């Protein structure tokens, strides 16, 4: 019931966009998002009571703790993005960056994007999950190229091609998994259901599943922004409009990791836990390394945030690779905290871009004077994302490093810690250039800061105190993921 309401909200939003653009459209979307968020909390409560549906007609659903967690995260960030979009779109219309019909299409694609992400995390059939993820790629391409600038078009082309190839590789992995399933039993009804795969995992051929996992990892890893398949990420996330960047960076990357997480227990049972662990640790460390390198030479603050996303996805992968209850739980919480922090930062970056008309760091100095509130929040947010206490990310990063030591990967964990330190120094240097500097205080326009402030406040709160429902939820996920 709650799930139906959630999906209906965004379908309604999409339908509204088919009408000609009216000034109440952003407000309507905000209302729908709030409604969906309320329904999301009902969903989590239903999970606790165990009354979630298993099927919707012909489609099998998989609403376990991980799905509920992802749904909650998606809805939270969607709320923030649509909240911020009101002010963002109004300002863009005012200063001529967007035409009204473009604004209508912006909301249409945004609704489709969120809807597809929600579908991806609730269906059981991994084939349909793939279809939904491909649909998110397609919905976001046009969002990235919304402003018809040269950079935006270049970014959207690269994203389209690399994303499509990545998703095609993931499809090959899905086909190979299906091949193994169909060898064991010729029945096709529900053969690709994730829950069924988990049950049959022990009887799969290890070699098949290893080959399939390689393709799945490369494919979904491309969508998740893991190096070296991350080349689309800085372009796409920096050229997209701010709320879209927030959603993509905060949630879409995590949804791609979710897809990988659905296969990980199956592969672990069939081919041994070492195989996937090695992949995750290796690529996680590589992502950290490449992000560190590119962050040092960075000159564009939006691309800086994008590479920071690469880094954090690397951290999550490390956590999942190190494993154990500590590593897994920390990685999942890190997904939530990163979503909060990164979306706040991207929303604020949107404010900065609209004021300074450029995404170069050298053009956006003196933020403490130019944009007192946004600038300060940006500083706080960056520190939070770098792992400063008492924000949540400090605790999860520490926990992941501890998990690494516990699992026995001494050298690798030390390397990860060193890279995190390099990233800390690099981003702090860029932050200093952004915040300080002599600029005349220009007339500050009406900027939306409430969503970003809310997100950062939530991040602070969750760092200090984990509410019991959330703690229970994450514990359940940890238990489900460990076979």
């Amino acid at each position, binding site marked *: 019931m709650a799930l139906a309401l959630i999906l209906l909200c965004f379908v309604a939003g999409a339908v509204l966009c088919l009408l000609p653009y009216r000034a109440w459209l952003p407000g309507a979307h905000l209302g729908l998002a709030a409604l969906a968020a309320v329904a999301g909390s009902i969903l989590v409560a239903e999970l606790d009571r165990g009354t979630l549906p298993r099927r919707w007609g012909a489609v099998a659903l998989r609403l376990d703790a991980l799905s509920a967690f992802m749904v909650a995260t998606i809805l939270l960030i969607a709320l923030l993005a649509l909240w911020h979009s009101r002010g963002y779109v109004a300002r863009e219309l005012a200063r001529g960056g967007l035409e009204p019909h473009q604004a209508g299409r912006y909301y249409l694609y945004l609704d489709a994007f969120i809807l597809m992400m929600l579908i991806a995390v609730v269906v059981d059939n991994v084939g349909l999950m793939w279809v939904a993820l491909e649909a998110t790629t*397609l919905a976001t391409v046009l969002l990235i190229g919304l402003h018809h600038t040269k950079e935006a078009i270049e970014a959207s082309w690269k994203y389209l091609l690399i994303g499509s190839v990545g998703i*095609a590789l993931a499809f090959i992995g899905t086909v190979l998994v299906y091949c193994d399933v169909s060898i064991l039993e010729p029945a096709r009804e529900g053969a690709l259901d994730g829950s069924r795969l988990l049950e049959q995992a022990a009887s799969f051929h290890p070699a098949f599943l290893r080959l399939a996992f390689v393709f799945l990892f490369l494919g979904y890893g491309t969508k998740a922004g893991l190096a070296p398949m991350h080349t689309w990420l800085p372009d796409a996330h920096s050229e997209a409009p701010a709320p879209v960047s927030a959603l993509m960076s905060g949630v879409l990357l995590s949804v791609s990791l979710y897809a990988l997480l659905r296969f990980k227990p199956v592969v672990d049972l069939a081919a041994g836990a070492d195989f996937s662990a090695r992949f995750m640790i290796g690529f996680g460390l590589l992502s950290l390394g490449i992000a560190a390198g590119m962050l040092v030479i960075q000159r564009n603050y939006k691309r800086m945030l994008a590479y920071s996303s690469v880094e954090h996805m690397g951290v999550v992968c490390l956590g999942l690779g190190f494993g154990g209850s500590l590593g897994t739980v920390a990685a999942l919480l890190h997904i939530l905290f990163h979503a909060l922090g990164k979306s706040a930062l991207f929303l604020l970056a949107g404010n900065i871009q609209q004021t300074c008309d450029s995404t170069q760091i050298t053009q956006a100095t003196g933020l403490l004077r130019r944009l007192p509130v946004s600038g300060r929040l940006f500083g706080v947010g960056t520190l939070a994302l770098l792992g400063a206490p008492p924000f949540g990310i400090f605790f999860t990063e520490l926990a992941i490093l501890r998990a690494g030591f516990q699992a026995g990967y001494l050298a690798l964990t030390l390397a990860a810690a060193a890279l995190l330190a390099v990233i800390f120094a690099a981003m702090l240097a860029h932050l200093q250039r952004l915040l300080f500097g002599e600029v005349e205080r220009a007339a500050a326009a009406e900027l939306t800061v409430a969503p970003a402030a809310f997100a950062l406040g939530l991040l602070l709160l969750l760092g200090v105190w984990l509410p019991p429902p959330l703690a229970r939820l994450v514990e359940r996920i940890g238990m489900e993921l460990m076979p």
Partner: protein
Amino acid sequence: MNPAIVYLVELGSGAILVTALAVIWRHSLQAYIGAFRLQSFLLGAVAALLSQLQGSLELLGVALLIALVKGWFIPRFLRRLLARVGSGREVRPYLNVAASLLICGALVVVAYSATADLVAASRLPTRNGVPLALAVVLIGFFVLISRRQAITQVIGFLVLENGIAMLALMVSYGLPLMVELGVFLDVLIALWIMQVVVYRIRDTFDTLDVTRLKGLRH
């Protein structure tokens, strides 16, 4: 297990691989579209033969869909796009034809060795086509990364998708119908979006040479 049908399927798989090579060999975009069209028809024919082998009506439907959408609709769509946007020839690719063909030969060997376990363990009569399917995927991928014109990259992507469809057919007689339909829909929408972006590239950059898209660095 009708041996004649199995033989024809093997023949069809080989022919599909050869049409994939045609994209590397020829120079004009019209030839690429023609090769893709032939490849899609062959794929539809192979799917129809497999539906005969398995006695599945679902698979026959998929075969018809492949022939209709990929064999007729998409080439027509590409031809119209080409007429409105393009130049007809591939702009000096990064590698010359002979080197590209040699690399494709190496990719075929890679495909064979990667799927050796799979072929050995599979009990389906179509198992000999599995390495060929993976080879088509790799060749499509190679076309995508080694060509400079945007439309050629799109064709490389379409060849990649054909290869994956062929893999699904060879390895498990296709996927459940719902998933197949979803995949078709995705490919069509992706193609439509690619067309939109190609128009935008042409309008903004005045060329379809993607090496000119170098604004975003680091």
